[in-house]
């Protein structure tokens, strides 16, 4: 069973539907024992970092996530990926979970003359091969919606997408912890392939 962490942010309907579509058992939950019982965990998220972090703290699940990340695959999606890093500079400075080294900063400052949010379909170029890409074709389009991005995380970066002056961090991994800035559950066939591979990790 894949546990989808419910901490009051994001469209969990599509994420759960996409896993079910693949024939996988998925449970939206905010119960610590369900995260412990799960074979793998997905940390979703949309909205503002500080707000999401506060909501996640309020569930009391942070220590559970940190513990479970030691023993089973954890995938952060979009803001859920950003939460994996050390800190974010979204409206102030907020601490992340520290599971992946790096920080989260505003796209508009580093990207040059680009539109923010970075919204739409962009190619994911694989920079380091990984079991997550078992069914994924290098350069396939994935769907992004975000205004902040992860940087100073080269050692963990698996894939990037070119936007303005930037190679935007698209996918990361450190140990059992994976993250995608894009939404696999909204990236059509390419996204489903990635979720299938995650389910086999």
């Amino acid at each position, binding site marked *: 069973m894949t546990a989808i962490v419910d901490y009051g942010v994001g*469209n969990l309907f599509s994420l759960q539907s996409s896993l079910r579509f693949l024939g996988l058992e998925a449970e939206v939950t905010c119960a610590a024992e369900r995260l412990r019982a799960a074979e793998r965990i997905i940390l979703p998220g949309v909205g503002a970092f500080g707000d999401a972090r506060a909501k996640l703290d309020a569930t009391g699940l942070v220590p559970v996530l940190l513990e479970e990340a030691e023993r089973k695959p954890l995938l952060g999606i979009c803001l859920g990926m950003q939460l994996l890093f050390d800190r974010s500079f979204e409206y102030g400075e907020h601490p992340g979970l520290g599971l992946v080294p790096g920080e989260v900063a505003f796209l508009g400052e580093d990207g040059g003359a680009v539109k923010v949010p970075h919204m*739409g*379909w962009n190619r994911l170029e694989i920079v380091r091969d990984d079991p997550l890409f078992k069914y994924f074709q290098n350069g396939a389009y994935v*769907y992004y919606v975000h205004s902040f991005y992860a940087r100073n995380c080269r050692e963990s970066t698996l894939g990037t997408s070119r936007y303005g002056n930037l190679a935007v961090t698209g996918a990361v991994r450190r140990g059992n912890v994976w993250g995608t800035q894009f939404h696999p559950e909204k990236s059509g066939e390419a996204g489903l392939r990635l979720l299938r591979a995650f389910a086999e990790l």
Partner: protein
Amino acid sequence: MLAKRIIPCLDVRDGRVVKGTNFQGLRDMADPVELARFYNGSGADELVFYDITASAEGRGLFTDILRRVASEIFIPLTVGGGIRTLEDFGRVLKCGADKVSVNSGAIADPSIIAAAARRYGDQCVVLSMDVKRVDGKFRLFAKGGREDTGIDAMEWAVRGVEDGAGEIVLNSIDTDGVKNGFDLEMLDALAARVKVPVVASGGAGNREHFAELFTHPGVDAGLAASIFHSKQVDIKDLKRFLQGRGVEMRL
């Protein structure tokens, strides 16, 4: 870099897809779930559903349809029509919508944009505008294009983005349903004023119109309804054609 997006728009009333010309004389077209499947298979980059139902039963039918679409189609879904309150945002987001498009609701209560952006994030608030030239100025219209609000459309867009709208859909009433091409002058005027993605709507009649549209760098996506529903233009063919013309497309 981002691919340009091709977006079919499904106007749904009482569980069926309809499309009008100049917003009048609506014609029944198809089953929305069926049509959504078809468009997903032919490479649509996103789907927009407008709920043009007035009744409560119709509204229930609409959320059922949305849920069914979101259970099997995994591309971005935008929902609009009848969005007036934060509860309306919540209702459609829970059924699988990724973005919510607000139009008349924002004219009636402009504070809805900031409130929704704060609660659900900028990325899910789409400001949809019906705009028409009046005395040589771009004027914002309400109620499906029937009522002149007297508001300057470009000022309205700038303010909407400041309040947190993450994308703008610009529907030109002057070109809508005429199939003579998108309103490039109006789109350029908007793109010069805002830094968020701009979706062009109203006027698509053939493939050339899209090729012309995407020579305008401020435009991120083209939205159309009847030319896709009538199969006059096939999305897969269109995207191959545009790629051949040097437009980045997700194929």
